[in-house]
């Protein structure tokens, strides 16, 4: 198990969710339901957001059924304020997203061999905050890449 949770628990413990962003939700409220899994992991349909660093900027998206399937994710707007992912009508309908407030968005993060952290802005995860239905969408417009360097923190 990658995230720091107590082994033997059926569901990863997730507390201390940051409330600094109204778009974030309480991960303890339940798992996210990815009806079709995610690309590369079609069998994994239930994921939980697990905190593993204190500041809450980054979380671990972890499969409920296979804890080895986990990745770091983060709110893209913390690093890319101008990011404007445009959902297709199909994704909006599939997720039953009516207004922007329904949608919670976070993006995969991965460290490169160069030690730099990269964010995948091409394939954001979109969650309907009301129903907890989720999918990883593939953006058509915007020229986003799966490997955008995360800017160094401003100190």
């Amino acid at each position, binding site marked *: 198990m*990658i*995230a720091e949770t107590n082994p033997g628990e059926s569901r990863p413990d997730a507390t201390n969710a940051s409330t600094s962003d109204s778009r974030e939700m309480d991960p303890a409220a339940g798992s996210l339901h990815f009806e*079709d899994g*995610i*690309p*590369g*992991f079609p069998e994994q349909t239930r994921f939980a957001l697990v905190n*593993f*660093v204190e*500041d809450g*900027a*980054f979380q*671990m998206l972890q499969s409920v059924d296979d804890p*080895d*399937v*986990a*990745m*770091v994710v983060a709110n893209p707007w913390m690093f890319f304020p101008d990011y404007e992912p445009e959902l297709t009508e*199909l*994704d909006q*309908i*599939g997720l039953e997203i009516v207004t922007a407030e329904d949608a919670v968005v976070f993006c*995969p*993060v*991965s*460290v490169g061999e160069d*030690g730099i*952290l990269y964010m*995948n802005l*091409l*394939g954001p995860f979109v969650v309907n905050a009301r129903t907890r239905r989720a*999918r*990883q969408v*593939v953006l*058509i417009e915007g020229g986003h890449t*799966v*490997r955008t360097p*995360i800017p160094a*923190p401003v100190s």
Partner: protein
Amino acid sequence: MLVLSRKEGESIVIGDNIVVTVLEVRSGQIRIGIDAPRDLQVHRHEVYRQVLEANQDAVANARASADALRSQPRR
């Protein structure tokens, strides 16, 4: 792989409710229209592959990524 020849404006039907139509053929490029159920996701293959491979990479690197974040606080 099933191979079919179609002209501009002609379609093929996949299953009961997916219709793929060749809209336009012009200088090495074709425009395709897809009528499919609303819950069916349709992607450009090469773009979908990028996201799939990025997911595999992010999962393989999850522990290293978490360690990198712990060792260098970002905020």
